[in-house]
């Protein structure tokens, strides 16, 4: 890895970190979802700064160059983050379903109660 490639990788990691922290500061991104991106930044920095480790991994996985290793890690990370968000979306879909059902049942309950009260009121008026 050339020094220029290293500088570019560190700069990209730094930029991602700044964007993520800024989103958390503005409350656009919840803290619980920021750790994944911060972990990604830490991963990039580790691969760039601990270069002998990157070289060893490159040799072990049979990649041509260390930049390929970084790309592979980025790709794996993106797949993991997609799975994570699929899980979250499934959770949210279940929650929305339950809320929708609860809302429908409560609305029906309220309407039935109002109807009963109205009928009772009408009965009282007729009795008078």
């Amino acid at each position, binding site marked *: 890895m050339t020094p220029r490639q290293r500088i570019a990788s560190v700069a990209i990691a730094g930029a991602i970190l700044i964007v993520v922290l800024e989103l958390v500061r503005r409350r656009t991104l919840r803290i619980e979802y920021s750790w994944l991106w911060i972990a990604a930044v830490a991963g990039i920095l580790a691969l760039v700064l601990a270069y002998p480790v990157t070289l060893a991994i490159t040799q072990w996985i049979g990649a041509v160059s260390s930049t390929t290793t970084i790309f592979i890690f980025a790709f794996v990370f993106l797949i993991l983050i997609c799975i994570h968000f699929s899980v979250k979306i499934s959770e949210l879909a279940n929650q929305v379903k339950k809320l929708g059902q609860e809302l*429908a049942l409560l609305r029906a309950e309220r309407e039935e109660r109002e109807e009963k009260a109205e009928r009772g009121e009408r009965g009282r008026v007729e009795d008078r």
Partner: protein
Amino acid sequence: MSRRVLIVIPVFNEAGYLGPVLRGLRRHAPGLDVLVVDDGSDDQSAAIAREEGALLVQHAYNAGYGVAIQTGLKYALRSGYRFALTFDGDGQHEPACVHALLGVCVSGRADLVIGSRYLPRGDSLPAAPYRGPLLRRLGSRFFGFLAGLFLGKKLTDPTSGFLAMNERAMRLYTADQFPDTYPDADAIVLAHRAGLRIEEIPVVMYPSPKGKRSMHGGALRPLRYVFDMLLSLGMIALRRGGEEE
């Protein structure tokens, strides 16, 4: 029996068929409470249900057939009904068969009773030659065979939405693990694994009204259905029995 039974009808834009269905139920099953679950319709389905004197629960958005069934069963449990029957709102199910289904359930012979359009019918039922399109029949046979492997007995109509159930089955159908995307063979297998007694009896069904969008219709939906159902059945097979209840 009347105060203990709720007929649940999930509807989505079925204003054109709902009136006759509700009147048919009133004629053949007088005194039974009928709940229409309007699954986010943008037509007059809810107004018709009100006009015909049915109970009504309205989803704020279209959540799907399985979720609508589940909402109806949740309503039944909360209101203290001991038995529920699910019935289509488009006129596919014959209201004269309601008592036959309920009878098996109320007698305690089964927890979940499936109305099958493929079982040979007795003479007392009205004649109706409808057995569904070829693709559906093949799908029913295939998933019936798969479900039969779990159940240890033949299942002829796993896609039937004409079901009667007791409180125990209602609790399972309203649980979180209920497969609400396509509650067919997988829901039946789930019920079997939870220890519910399941029985199939013959019923009469009619063709889906022309122009109605079916849950299994379209070009890609059947493929999606087969994939989802196989995956769902596979997952149920992988889970331990205790995880189902």
